[in-house]
C-alpha cells in the first residue's frame, strides 16, 4: 500500500506544513526561479525534445538529399551545415541533456530517497546555461553560418585559412558554453549521489540507475575539459594567431584529433551509460525479479566509462600513427567490450529467470538489447586495426554508431518515457498504440541503419553530399531514406500516444507497475517535497521491502523523520550512507537565470570579437556569483 494517503490527522497537518514550505511560486516567475529538481527535469525534457525534433529534421533532409545519386535537394554548403548540426544537436543538445538533465534530474532524488539535489540553485543554473547555449548555437543555423566541418571539426579544414567565416567560432564557443552546463550537471550528480542519499543506503544498496548516472557524471567531468582545451586552442588559433594546429609553425593537426577524441570516446560511453541505467530500472519492474548479478552490472557501468578513457585513438587508425602506438588503443578497445557483454547477459538472464511481461517499456528494452548487441558486435570488429583502417570514415562506421546511439541510447529513452509517464503525469498511457509505435520504430530504424553496413563496405564514404550512380549504392540509400520516414512515423505515433494519454488516460495510482525503487512509494505526480517521510532503505529495491514500507507508515503516523521545519534534507557519509547532518537547502532563487544571461553575453561578445566588452561581462558574471552567495542558509 503506498504511503500517499495520510493515515492520521496529526500526520495530515504536518504534511500540510511541508506542502506549504516546499510550495514554489505560481506562474512564469515560479518556473524562472525554480530549483525543484522535478521542474528542472521537465524543463530539460521539453527543451531536449524540441532539439530532438530539430536534429531529426536535419537527418531527414540529409536522407532526402542522399535518396538518389547526383541530386540537388540541398547545396553542398547547406549539406555540410546540416550534417554538422545534426551531429552536434543530437549529441550535445539531445542525448546528454535528455538522459542526465531530464531523466537524471527528475529521478535521481526520488531513487535516492532525497528531497532535492545537493546544490539546487546550481541545478537551475545548469539548465539555464544549457538553454542559452542551445539558442546560441541555433542562431548560427538561422543566420546561415552554422558549423560546417562535422561534429568533430578536424583542423586545418576548421582553421581560419579554410573556414574564414564565423561558422567555426560558433562551434568553439557553443561547445564551451554547453560544456559548462554539462560539467555543472555532472558535478551536481556526483555530490548528490555521494552525499544526499536516504540514511542507511550504502553503496551496495543503491539502485543501478544511480550507478549509471554516477558513471556518466564521472565521464563528463573528466572528458569535457579535453574538449574545452581543444576548442580554446582552436579559438586562439583562429582569432589571436597562435599556432597550435599550424604544421608550418611547429603545431600539429593531429593534436586536435588527439584532444578531441580524448573527449570524444568517453563521450559516446557517456551517451550509453544512462541508457543502461534506464534499462536496469525497467527490467526488474517488468520481470518482477531483482536484476541478475547486481555487483557485476554495477561495476560494469563504472568500468565501461573508465576503460573508455583509454581507447580514444581507435578513431585515428588511418592518420599514420606507428603500429606500436595504435596497439595500446586496440588492446583497450578489446577489453572495453567486456563490461557491455556482462550487462547484456545479465539482462537476458533476468528476462529468462524472471516473470517477463512484454509491455511497451520492456519491448523497447528488448529492442534496445537487440540493437545494442548488433552495434556492439560491429564495434568489436574495430579491435582489428587493418579492418578498421579499411572501413573508417565509411558508412559502415555510420551504421555502427547509429545502431549504438539510436538503438542503444534512444530506445531506452523512449522506453523510459513510457515507463515513468504514469509517475510524472499521474495517467496511464494506452498500451496498444504504445506497442505499435515500438514495432514501427524498430522496423524503421533497422531499415534505416542496416543497409548502411552494406553500402559502407561497398565503398561509400561518410559526409558525401552526393554520390555517382553505377557503384551499387543507389538501392541501399533509397531504402535508408524510406526507413528514415518510417522511423519518423513511429516517433510521431509515440508522441501522439503520450499526448493523448496525458488528457484522456486512466488515472495511474502511485505504483501501477509494482516498481522496485523508491519513486513508486510516493504519489504520482510526486509532491514538491518528494517524500513525506524520509524512507528507510535496506536494499537496492526499496519498494519491494514491505517491512521498511510499514516502518515508513508508522513514522508518518508518529510524525517522525518528516523534517518539516524548513527545506531540510539529511546528508550522509559517501560510502556507507550513515547520517552526517541535516542540511538546510536553498529554495527558489533568481540568480541562476541572471548568471546564465551574463554568461551568454560573454560568449556573444567573444563571438563578435569585442574582447574588452567580453571581459566586462566576465566581471558582471563574478558579481552575479557574489550576489548569489550573499544569501546564506538559516543557522
Amino acid at each position, binding site marked *: 500500500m503506498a504511503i500517499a494517503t495520510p493515515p492520521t490527522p496529526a500526520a495530515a497537518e504536518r504534511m500540510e506544513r511541508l506542502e506549504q514550505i516546499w510550495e514554489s511560486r505560481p506562474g512564469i516567475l515560479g518556473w524562472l526561479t525554480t530549483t525543484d529538481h522535478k521542474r528542472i527535469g521537465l524543463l530539460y525534457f521539453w527543451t531536449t525534445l524540441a532539439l530532438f525534433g530539430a536534429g531529426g529534421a536535419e537527418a531527414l533532409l540529409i536522407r532526402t538529399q542522399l535518396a538518389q545519386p547526383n541530386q540537388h535537394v540541398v547545396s553542398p554548403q547547406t549539406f555540410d551545415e546540416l550534417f554538422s548540426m545534426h551531429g552536434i544537436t543530437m549529441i550535445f543538445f539531445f542525448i546528454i541533456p535528455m538522459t542526465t538533465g531530464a531523466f537524471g534530474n527528475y529521478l535521481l532524488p526520488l531513487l535516492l530517497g532525497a528531497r532535492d539535489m545537493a546544490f539546487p540553485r546550481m541545478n537551475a543554473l545548469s539548465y539555464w546555461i544549457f538553454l542559452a547555449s542551445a539558442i546560441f548555437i541555433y542562431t548560427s543555423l538561422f543566420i546561415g553560418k552554422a558549423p560546417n566541418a562535422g561534429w568533430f571539426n578536424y583542423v586545418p579544414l576548421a582553421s581560419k585559412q579554410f573556414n574564414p567565416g564565423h561558422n567555426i567560432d560558433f562551434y568553439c564557443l557553443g561547445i564551451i558554453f554547453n560544456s559548462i552546463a554539462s560539467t555543472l550537471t555532472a558535478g551536481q550528480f556526483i555530490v548528490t549521489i555521494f552525499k544526499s542519499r536516504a540514511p542507511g543506503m550504502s553503496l551496495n544498496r543503491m539502485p543501478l540507475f544511480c550507478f549509471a548516472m554516477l558513471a556518466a557524471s564521472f565521464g563528463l567531468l573528466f572528458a569535457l575539459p579535453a574538449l574545452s582545451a581543444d576548442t580554446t586552442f582552436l579559438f586562439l588559433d583562429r582569432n589571436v594567431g597562435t599556432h597550435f594546429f599550424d604544421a608550418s609553425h611547429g603545431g600539429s593537426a593531429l593534436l586536435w584529433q588527439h584532444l578531441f577524441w580524448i573527449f570524444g570516446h568517453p563521450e559516446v560511453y557517456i551517451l550509453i551509460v544512462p541508457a543502461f541505467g534506464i534499462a536496469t530500472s525497467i527490467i526488474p519492474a517488468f520481470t518482477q525479479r531483482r536484476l541478475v548479478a547486481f555487483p557485476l552490472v554495477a561495476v560494469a557501468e563504472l568500468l565501461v566509462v573508465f576503460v573508455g578513457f583509454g581507447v580514444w585513438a581507435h578513431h585515428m587508425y*588511418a592518420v599514420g600513427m606507428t603500429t606500436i602506438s595504435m596497439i595500446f588503443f*586496440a588492446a583497450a578497445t578489446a577489453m572495453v567490450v567486456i563490461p557491455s557483454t556482462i550487462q547484456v547477459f545479465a539482462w537476458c538472464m533476468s528476462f529468462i*529467470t524472471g516473470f517477463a511481461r512484454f509491455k511497451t517499456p520492456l519491448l523497447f528494452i528488448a529492442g534496445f538489447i537487440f540493437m545494442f548487441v548488433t552495434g556492439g558486435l560491429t564495434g568489436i570488429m574495430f579491435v582489428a586495426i587493418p579492418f578498421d583502417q579499411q*572501413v573508417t570514415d565509411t558508412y559502415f562506421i555510420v551504421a555502427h554508431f547509429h545502431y549504438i546511439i539510436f538503438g542503444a541510447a534512444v530506445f531506452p529513452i523512449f522506453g523510459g518515457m513510457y515507463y515513468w509517464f504514469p509517475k510524472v503525469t499521474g495517467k496511464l498511457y494506452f498500451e496498444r498504440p504504445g506497442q505499435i509505435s515500438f514495432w514501427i520504430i524498430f522496423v524503421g530504424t533497422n531499415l534505416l541503419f542496416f543497409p548502411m553496413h552494406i553500402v559502407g563496405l561497398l*565503398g561509400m564514404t561518410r559526409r558525401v553530399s552526393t554520390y555517382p550512380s553505377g557503384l551499387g549504392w543507389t538501392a541501399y540509400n533509397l531504402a535508408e531514406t524510406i526507413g528514415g520516414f518510417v522511423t519518423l512515423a513511429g516517433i510521431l505515433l509515440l508522441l501522439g500516444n503520450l499526448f493523448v494519454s496525458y488528457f484522456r488516460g486512466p488515472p495511474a495510482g502511485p505504483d501501477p507497475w509494482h516498481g522496485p525503487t523508491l519513486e513508486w512509494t510516493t504519489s504520482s505526480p510526486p509532491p514538491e517535497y518528494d517524500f513525506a517521510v524520509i524512507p528507510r532503505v535496506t536494499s537496492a529495491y526499496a519498494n519491494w521491502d514491505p517491512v521498511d514500507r510499514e516502518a515508513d507508515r508508522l513514522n508518518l503516523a508518529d510524525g517522525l523523520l518528516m523534517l518539516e521545519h524548513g527545506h531540510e534534507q539529511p546528508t550522509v557519509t559517501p560510502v556507507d550512507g550513515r547520517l552526517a547532518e541535516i542540511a538546510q537547502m536553498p529554495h527558489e532563487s533568481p540568480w541562476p537565470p541572471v548568471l546564465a544571461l551574463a554568461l551568454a553575453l560573454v560568449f556573444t561578445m567573444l563571438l563578435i570579437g569585442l574582447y574588452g566588452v567580453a571581459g566586462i561581462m566576465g566581471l558582471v558574471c563574478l558579481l552575479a556569483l557574489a550576489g548569489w552567495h550573499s544569501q546564506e542558509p538559516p543557522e
Partner: protein
Amino acid sequence: MNAPREDRRCLAFLVLAVVPLAGCGGSQNALAPESHQARDIATLFWWMMGGAWVGLGLVVGLLLWSWKRRNRRGFGRDVEGDKPGEKRSWYAVVVLGIVMPIAVISTLFVVSDLFVIKTTQAPASTTTKLTVQVIGHQWWWEVRYPGTTAVTANELHIPARTPVRVEVKTADVIHSFWVPELNRKIDTIPGRSNVVELDADQVGRYRGQCAEFCGLQHAHMAMYVFVDEPSAFRRWLAQQEKPVEAPSSALAERGARLFLDGPCSSCHAIRGTDADGYVGPDLTHVASRATLGALTVSNTPDDLRQWILHSQQAKPGNQMPDFNASGARLDALVAFLEGLK
C-alpha cells in the same frame, strides 16, 4: 573489368552473407579484394562477421526464449529477495559475459594486430620497387613519379604484381587516399608524409575516393588506379615524361596562344611551354586522362567544352571560375587541349 571473377565472387557473397550483398557490381567494393592486403582484410571481415552472427544468434535466442516464457504465473508476487535461478544466471553471466568474450576478442587481437597488420602497415623502404607521390588538393589528386618529370592528376598508373610505395601528402586540409580493392586508407596530414603499399594482382582499373571530409566538394574527389602490365606501364610513363609537342593544326595553334595569354596559364602548367601555374592540375597530357575534375565528368570534347564554360555547375565551389569564351575561341581552346595526348 574482369567480369567472370566478379560474378563468382558475387555468388560467394550470396551464399555466405545471410543478407544478400546485392549490387556488388560496383568497382569500389572492400569485399572484392584485388591484392593480398585487401584479401587479408576481407578474410578477417568474413571471420568476424561469422562470429558476429553467432553472437547475435545467441542473444536473440535468449530473447526469444524469454518471449516464450512470458506471462508466467507469479507476476505481482512480492519478491522479498528470493531471486529464482540466481546461481545458474551468475554462471551464465561469468562464462558468456566475461570468459568467452575475453578469449574470443584476445584471439582476434592477436591475429589481426600481430599478423594481419604486418601486410597492411607501411612497407619497409627496401621491399618496394617503385615510388609514387600523391598530393591531395581541395578536391583533386596530384600524382608525381619521383625520378621522372611525369606529373598527372586523379589517375595513378602502376605496374601489376609489383609492390608500389605510395607516399601521400596534402597541400591544404586533411584528405584520405583510399582504393578499397587494393589496400586500407591512409590520411594525408599537413607537415608529414604517410606511406601505403599498393600491390595489385590483376591488370585493371580500380576506383578510389577521398575518405576524410575535406570541404564542399569532398564528394567529387575520386581517382582511378590503372594497373598495367609492366611493359605497358613503362610505355605510359615514357609518354607522360615527354613535354608537349608543337600544336598540329592552326586552330590548335590559336588555342595554344589563347591558353598561354589568357588566365589559364596562371593556374595550370603545361611542360614545354611557359605555363607553370600550380593551383590547378598539370595539363601536359590531359587528353590521355579518362575523366576531368577528379572523376566528376568524363573526358569527351563536349564535356570538356561544358567543363570550361560551367565548371561551377558540375562542381560548385571548386577553385576554377566559369570561363566566358564564345564559339570560335572556345573551339580553338578545346582543339588545343584535345591535342595534348
